[in-house]
């Protein structure tokens, strides 16, 4: 063993943990011992050649002919055969039902990938979706449960919490890290002059299937014995949810929601145990070793590659989504933290693949201000994808609606979109400058007769110019569809349109694939 090699290894260790330098002698002996105790594998050319020949022989030998008797007794093949029979039976049932009832199929999950591009967005006559004046405002919209992206307590705790800092007498507490109690934000437009020439624009409505697959599955399963319940005594059954789990370490749950025509992945929680976590309380050494630090936090490229690999492995198309963006909003919390050494880094990293709509591939935003699209969570202690939501077949209908193109009114609406942090006086008002807007789409919902329709409407996004303030929104989104604009403006609802999110995902523009 060369002295240089030993010194190099030791220096490497000191760089990782400078405290080890104090134990130089011990460490030197330890490393020497480790190097000396390296087992003798007795690897030699003769062994290599022998294995080589064995491997090449096996590669050259054609696979064994099918042995029917082994097939019958082999348990593995019995299971495969059983699954094959069930699949044949299911397909026959589905085909029979389809031809007997002639049910028209729209966008059921299983057909979504089998239709042409031209069928994915169907153009209807103008105003086909009815009056949009009744579109849910951000105050009262009910976003359907489109699969939940689980958030750990740590991830949630990193979202800046705006709260009232006051003592029990109602007096504001000063010197606190929390936001001052009476703090106002005033938006002022500081962008370029702009003109909007379009008098009409396309609104898109997501098309859900008519449940043909769900009904077919229900028909197939109806005769199974579910704890003695005879499902044939119930009428017009259909399946609303179907879940599969991977019964392996860190396996996933795959969930199909037939009501909302989407699917999502989540942790099969039984198989996601973290070693020592259950026996490890805060304050103990094991809690410290489980914590990530800044050096360990992966780069964005690494996370994006993980997500892309997941989708390509499972055959999920990203054709209608923009380049992924990693949520680094926690970094602003780190910057403002008074004790960075004790900062608790998130255990999950989230990314979003923004949804793109229309011929111009315009970006879609949620009413909360984040990108609409596919949301991915990556577990950082295992470096694997743990949750994916926002997956649904890309099927829309489009229809033209009148747009508001009065830039003065739109600017005024954006400037008035503020949230008052106090109910009474505002002792301190911060001015936030809005930059030149760009056209986007806003995801909205229309709730009627116990059903939710998802609509994507043209909107203008005014980004905040210059330094981002902790206490204000990062952008303001104003709807362009005249009916929606007038309704929300007249009802004072436009003040609430501005998203309160200060998430870092807004800081970059997605590029298109």
């Amino acid at each position, binding site marked *: 063993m060369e002295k240089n090699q030993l010194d190099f290894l030791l220096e490497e260790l000191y760089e990782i943990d400078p405290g080890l330098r104090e134990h130089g002698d011990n460490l030197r002996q*330890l490393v020497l011992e480790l190097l000396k105790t*390296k087992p*003798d594998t007795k*690897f030699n050319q003769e*062994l290599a050649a022998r294995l080589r020949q064995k491997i090449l022989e096996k*590669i*050259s030998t054609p696979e064994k002919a099918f042995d029917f008797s082994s097939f019958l007794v082999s348990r593995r093949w019995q299971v495969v055969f059983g699954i094959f029979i069930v699949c044949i039976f299911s397909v026959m049932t589905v085909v029979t039902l389809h031809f007997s009832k002639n049910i028209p199929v729209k966008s059921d999950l299983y057909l979504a990938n089998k239709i042409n591009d031209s069928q994915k967005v169907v153009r209807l006559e103008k105003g086909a979706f009815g009056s949009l004046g009744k579109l849910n405002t951000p105050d009262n919209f009910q976003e359907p449960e489109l699969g939940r992206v689980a958030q750990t307590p740590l991830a949630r705790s990193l979202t800046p919490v705006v709260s009232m800092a006051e003592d029990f007498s109602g007096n504001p507490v000063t010197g606190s890290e929390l936001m001052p109690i009476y703090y106002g934000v005033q938006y002022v437009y500081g962008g370029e002059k702009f003109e909007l020439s379009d008098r009409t624009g396309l609104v898109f409505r997501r098309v859900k299937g008519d449940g043909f697959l769900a009904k077919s599955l229900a028909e197939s399963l109806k005769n199974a014995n579910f704890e003695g319940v005879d499902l044939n005594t119930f009428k017009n059954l259909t399946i609303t949810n179907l879940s599969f789990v991977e019964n392996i370490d860190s396996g996933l749950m795959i969930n199909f929601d037939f009501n909302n025509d989407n699917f999502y992945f989540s942790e099969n929680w039984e198989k996601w145990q973290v070693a020592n976590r259950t026996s490890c309380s805060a304050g103990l050494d094991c809690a410290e*070793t489980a914590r990530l*630090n800044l*050096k360990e936090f992966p780069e964005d490229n690494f996370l994006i590659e993980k997500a892309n690999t997941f989708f390509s492995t499972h055959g999920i198309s990203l054709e209608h989504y923009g380049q992924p963006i990693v949520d680094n909003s926690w970094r602003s919390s780190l910057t403002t933290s008074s004790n960075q050494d004790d900062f608790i880094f998130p255990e999950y990293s989230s990314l979003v693949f923004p949804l793109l709509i229309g011929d111009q591939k315009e970006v879609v935003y949620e009413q909360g201000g984040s990108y609409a699209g596919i949301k991915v969570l990556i577990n950082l202690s295992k470096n694997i994808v743990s949750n994916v939501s926002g997956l649904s077949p890309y099927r829309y209908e489009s229809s033209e609606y009148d747009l508001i193109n009065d830039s003065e009114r739109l600017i005024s609406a954006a400037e008035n979109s503020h949230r008052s942090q106090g109910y009474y006086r505002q002792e301190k008002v911060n001015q936030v400058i809005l930059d030149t807007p760009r056209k986007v789409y806003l995801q909205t919902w229309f709730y009627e007769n116990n059903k939710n329709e998802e609509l994507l409407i043209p909107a203008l996004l005014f980004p905040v110019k210059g330094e981002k303030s902790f206490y204000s929104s990062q952008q303001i989104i104003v709807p362009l569809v005249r009916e929606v604009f007038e309704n929300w403006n007249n009802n004072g609802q436009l003040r609430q349109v501005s998203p309160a999110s200060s998430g870092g995902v807004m800081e970059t523009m997605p590029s298109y694939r």
Partner: protein
Amino acid sequence: MENTDEQLKKMINLAQAGDSQAFASVYDLYIGKIYNFIFYKTLHQPLAEDLTSQTFLKAWKNIKQFQSGSFSAWLYSIARNLVIDHFRAQKEFLNIDDCWDLQASDDIFKEVDDRLKIEKIKTAFSQLNSKEREILILRFWQDLSFKEIALILQKNEGAVKMSFGRAVNALKKEMPLELFILAPLILNLWKKIN
């Protein structure tokens, strides 16, 4: 003159097209490292030979799936998984990934030629988790860089270094300086008596 990376890429492409001789060239490049790695995790020559063969056969069968990245890391991953599968199958109810988690009384340790050598570090090694052991094996016994180790274990380099530091710290506690001074003396005395 082509560099080794380009030559390797060519061989892999040929192997993906079904050229078994090209695959044999790839085998020649990696057999030493893979065999040694498996041996360090099994300490059993016949088993190491068997698992090494399985590694390369599996690599040949799935070579078309290898698209980009480090081929070495890909091969190591196959080898790792085969070792883990072997031990999990043998000791179904125990969470064992390699031989270092086995009991000292297990037969495998009786067959090791360097039994005395191994016993010195077995106690220390068994205090580490299998990933930490792996990092030590790959760094000290196989002289791989942290970058290469990170690719094999699918972790980022920073995390690998942290685990490495923790593992060495843990070993330092298990193997104090006195052990290195006194142990040879005791061993020599024992030999004289016996």
